[in-house]
């Protein structure tokens, strides 16, 4: 079976807390939200917001700044953003994409 996952961080309810979202250096990401792990051959598709978050973390942007921006751009409560942020982190960790 082809491995092809979808990250679930959708615009209506993103969230935010303490942040250690550092992708492994060999992980390739694209602007379109595709993520490729060259060591395992796994491919993933992130939705636009998750892709945006990953792209910003890759450029070294601070987590707090990303979350503040999300809170400003989307109609989402801080608690919900925290929850969804944690979900995203957990998925990235489960998929062995984090350092």
């Amino acid at each position, binding site marked *: *079976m*082809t*491995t092809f996952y979808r990250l679930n961080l959708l615009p209506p309810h993103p969230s935010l807390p303490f942040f250690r979202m550092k992708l492994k250096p*060999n992980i*390739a990401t694209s602007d379109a939200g595709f993520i*490729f792990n*060259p*060591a*395992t*051959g796994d491919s993933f598709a992130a939705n636009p917001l998750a892709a945006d978050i990953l792209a910003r973390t890759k450029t070294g942007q601070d987590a707090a700044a990303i979350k503040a921006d999300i809170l400003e751009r989307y109609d989402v409560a801080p608690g919900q953003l925290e929850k969804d942020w944690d979900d995203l982190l957990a998925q990235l960790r489960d998929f062995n994409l984090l350092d």
Partner: protein
Amino acid sequence: MPTTSALPRLTVAVTGLNATDSPGPGVAVIRALRESPDFDLRIIGLSYEALEPGIYLRELVDKTFQLPYPSAGTAALLERLAHIRQQEDVAVLIPNFDAELYNFIKLGPQLRALGIHTFLPTLAQLEARDKLNLAAFGAAHGLSVPTSRPLHSAAELLATAETLGWPLVLKGRYYDAAVVHSLAQAEQAFARLAGQWGVPLIAQQFVAGQEINIAGLGDGHGRTLSAVPMRKLTITDRGKAWAGITLADEALLALARRFAEATSWRGGFELELMRTTSDELVILEINPRFPAWIYLTAAAGQNQPAALLRLAMSLPVMEMEDYAVGKMFVRYAWDLITDHTEFQQVAALGEL
């Protein structure tokens, strides 16, 4: 195949034209050879059956001759190859089936006398990595392999399962395997595999994890000239790769190098591995030839068949290091159209 190439002409014979759902590597080898920057090739297909698809791939195969089955022995094979050599200036022969390798290796000196070069493992290398000897091979070279034992009759199944545990993997001597979860399943699989491939079968401890394969080329002196790891993305119900992707993982390349160095492997090889959840790399099988997905190595930048061709012609080959990671293949089925006259020619006259 008409050509205007300025490259030197070379005629190469290749077996394994059965590009079926359990494919032989021949067609993929030929496809890679056709991209050789060194030679303008005339390809002679060597087939065992009249419906091997490669026979009818006329854009890849210039002419095909049928061979006697490996069970006919070396004398019959040599006689046939001598006949072919009278008609075609075959300079290199690349066998691609496990079951035929013994005969071709054995005939090495006679083939050389006919002017036919090969680049094959030695008989000792061939036998050392045999499925029946894999456990001893792993122990001798410090390579992780599953526990296995030969099975000569179905009566041994229960005791074997008690030792190795369920599920159990039953393997034919050369091809085919089944994962069985109960004695009833094991008995059924034993009957099928033994009926098709003979005994002994091999019972192997089941290893869970992610299946990874490495195609490699050894120079016969311990050097790995090329190694390309691939993960299967889609498999057929017979466990054959239908799609795959190249990987970047130093541990995999190191394992391939260790294998070639420990054995001084000569020629193409494929390591079939399982990466366990604890990240251990376990060698399930060592194939003494290129795999059916070998064209992916050429597509990724390491054309192993073309390099083997140079080795067979005693030309130098540099170690290849870089390859494209994330290069994928997706196999497909295609209905070749031919005419009954061509089929009859192969079936009745043994050549096309």
